[in-house]
């Protein structure tokens, strides 16, 4: 079956008269109208794109295409724009076999709820003929989790990238960092500083990236072409067989040629094996990718790397996230002293207690911008700035997770557009 035939079948399934109505509504179909038949590519590129906002606004029942027994997990995404996050029902993931070339998974693994739930790791171990031995990582009670991991004898970790520094610190304390053979990271790209930290902390670990998204049930979005070895770009992927990838100009929503050198927003359609709980057709991932000049040597496919977000309005950090809308809200509290124009840079700084988050906030003072004034302002902003429902940035500093927030005056070269306000280093 070629791409068009697969997509045609998917469209027909998702627009059947008895199907949940998300796509029928999106495509403006009338009651009783038969399923949409895709005549060719010229019709495909006219199909409206699916956005996270659409998922948020569509009740779960209207976008749930399977039965309860088909649901492997339920995710909620980060809620990047201050809106209610959508809850996504996801069936069992497929196409994760590539992980086996890096690790046997015979021994216990320390696993967060992402990219796969602990029970999924157990099922994998069972399918491979091994005993199901998984220690669920609890970021709130990280030390207790790592203590259990030590007793269990874990040799692999699967978690958010931003949890790795904390796990590293605790595993050094427990004396087990050197026994780790695999680190699978998701949630954000591996930065050079994180890579360096991992190599120092886990000298025997192979590092593999996991590029997924809470809204996409058929994870991963891309299959890693190789482990992260330090070679740039650090994380490179090729397309999963069950996915149809498009790259668009995110502002004009024009499809760009899928060829080396193309850079734009990744749009994915997932033709994953049935059951499909939340099938996505032309979903805007919000991720900017670049197709590399060279094909993936091992898989003879075009390879791409993730270079950022279309509109980065949040950055995940341990214990919460830094949000553009929240930063803007706080800056408006100090409206008499500064404008709400800003640029936020997040760094991961090595320390004797592992990596710590440092935030430098470039702001636009209305009047004075002496270091003393900005220092006092930084303290007050940190006290107001919420990184989670129950935590402010300054509380994170008190807890020893973050370094004190710094305010500096913004320059004319900074913050040229709103889409560059939140930068992770």
């Amino acid at each position: 079956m070629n791409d068009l035939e697969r997509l045609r079948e998917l469209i027909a399934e998702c627009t059947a008269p008895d199907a949940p109505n998300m796509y029928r509504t999106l495509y403006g179909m009338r009651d009783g109208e038969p399923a949409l038949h895709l005549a060719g590519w010229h019709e495909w590129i006219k199909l409206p794109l699916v956005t996270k906002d659409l998922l948020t606004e569509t009740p779960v029942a209207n976008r749930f295409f399977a039965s309860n027994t088909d649901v492997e997990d339920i995710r909620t995404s980060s809620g990047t724009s201050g809106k209610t996050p959508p809850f996504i029902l996801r069936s069992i993931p497929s196409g994760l076999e590539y992980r086996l070339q890096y690790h046997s998974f015979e021994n216990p693994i320390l696993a967060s709820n992402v990219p796969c739930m602990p029970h999924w790791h157990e099922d994998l171990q069972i399918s491979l003929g091994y005993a199901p031995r998984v220690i669920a990582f609890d970021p709130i009670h990280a030390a207790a989790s790592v203590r259990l991991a030590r007793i269990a004898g874990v040799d692999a970790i699967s978690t958010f990238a931003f949890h790795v520094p904390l796990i590293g610190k605790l595993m050094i304390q427990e004396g087990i960092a050197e026994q780790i053979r695999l680190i699978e990271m998701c949630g954000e790209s591996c930065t050079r500083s994180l890579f360096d930290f991992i190599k120092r902390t886990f000298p025997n670990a192979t590092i593999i990236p996991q590029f997924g998204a809470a809204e996409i049930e058929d994870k991963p979005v891309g299959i890693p072409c190789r482990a992260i070895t330090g070679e740039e770009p650090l994380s490179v992927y090729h397309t999963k067989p069950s996915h149809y990838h498009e790259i668009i100009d995110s502002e004009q929503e024009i499809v760009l040629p899928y060829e080396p050198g193309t850079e734009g927003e990744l749009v994915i359609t997932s033709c994953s094996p049935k059951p499909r709980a939340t099938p996505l057709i032309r979903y805007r991932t919000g991720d900017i990718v670049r197709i590399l000049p060279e094909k993936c040597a091992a898989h003879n496919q075009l390879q791409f790397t993730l270079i950022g977000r279309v509109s980065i309005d949040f950055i995940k950090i341990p214990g919460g996230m830094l949000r553009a809308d929240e930063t803007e809200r706080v800056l408006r509290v100090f409206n008499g002293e500064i404008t709400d124009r800003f640029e936020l840079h997040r760094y991961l700084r090595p320390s004797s207690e592992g990596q710590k988050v440092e935030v430098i906030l470039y702001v636009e003072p209305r009047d004075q911008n002496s270091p003393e004034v900005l220092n006092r302002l930084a303290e007050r902003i940190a006290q107001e700035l919420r990184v989670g429902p129950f935590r402010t940035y300054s509380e994170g500093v008190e807890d020893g997770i973050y370094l004190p927030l710094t305010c500096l005056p913004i320059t004319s070269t900074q913050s040229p557009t709103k889409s560059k306000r939140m930068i992770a280093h």
Partner: protein
Amino acid sequence: MTTPRTHTFKQSPEEAYARFEIEPTPYGDETSHEALLHLLQRAEKNISKSPFRLVPASFNPLDPSLTAFPRPLQSEWQSLRLYLKVLESRAVMMLLPLFWQMESATYRVCRDSGLLFFVADISNTPVNSLAIDSLTIDTIITTTQDCQAVLSYLSTKQRNIPRSWVFVHSVDAVPQHIPPEFSTGTKVAQEVHVFPGVPILEQCGSLIERRAKTFHASDSYTWVFKSDRTLITSAGDDPLPFIRYRLPFVAIEQGVCVCGKAEIEYFHE
């Protein structure tokens, strides 16, 4: 008081403990909590050599003596299966600390029962309350303490309270039963765990219907009820069996339930 039943190990305690290269407490004595922790700590170095599931041997993540309690690979949360059936659950939220290692067992019961299963972030009550609405969650598995946080939030936002709850009580916590915010139609199943994921006191459909404060003794253990102490001994396949382990409460039989089992109430010393 009942006469102590004879316990029947599939393997002798000596054989079980030998796997971990430790000696059990001499039979006939009771095992204190401190003695059990000491045994578990001595067993640590050998736990990874055999295939077990692990749960924490404490409900408190900050417990300096935190160690692991091994469970058989095939262990299941059978009592939850009954509760979800009696409660007529359709969509379940697990609101328990992840380090308790109960996600997998809960998922498997929900999957086998055809129920939606959502793992809540215990630190994010606003999102959890949204999940209750969006996913039409009707059953929450949690502790009475975390239940209060959810109830407070739902009350503030004037949202409906889910109709069914499963409370997991720690063996060393003074039991708190039905929150006053619950309407008469809210159903509650409760059980007491000796360690997270290791239930020792359970409820049947009748106790749930009656919202009883009493429990049934788990068949996985043989029990010794004395006026000043309650002891359990593993009757099943615990890799590192309890041997006359002294519980931190005194359990008293309070008659017989319609299901035929003794009803048990417990009081902390």
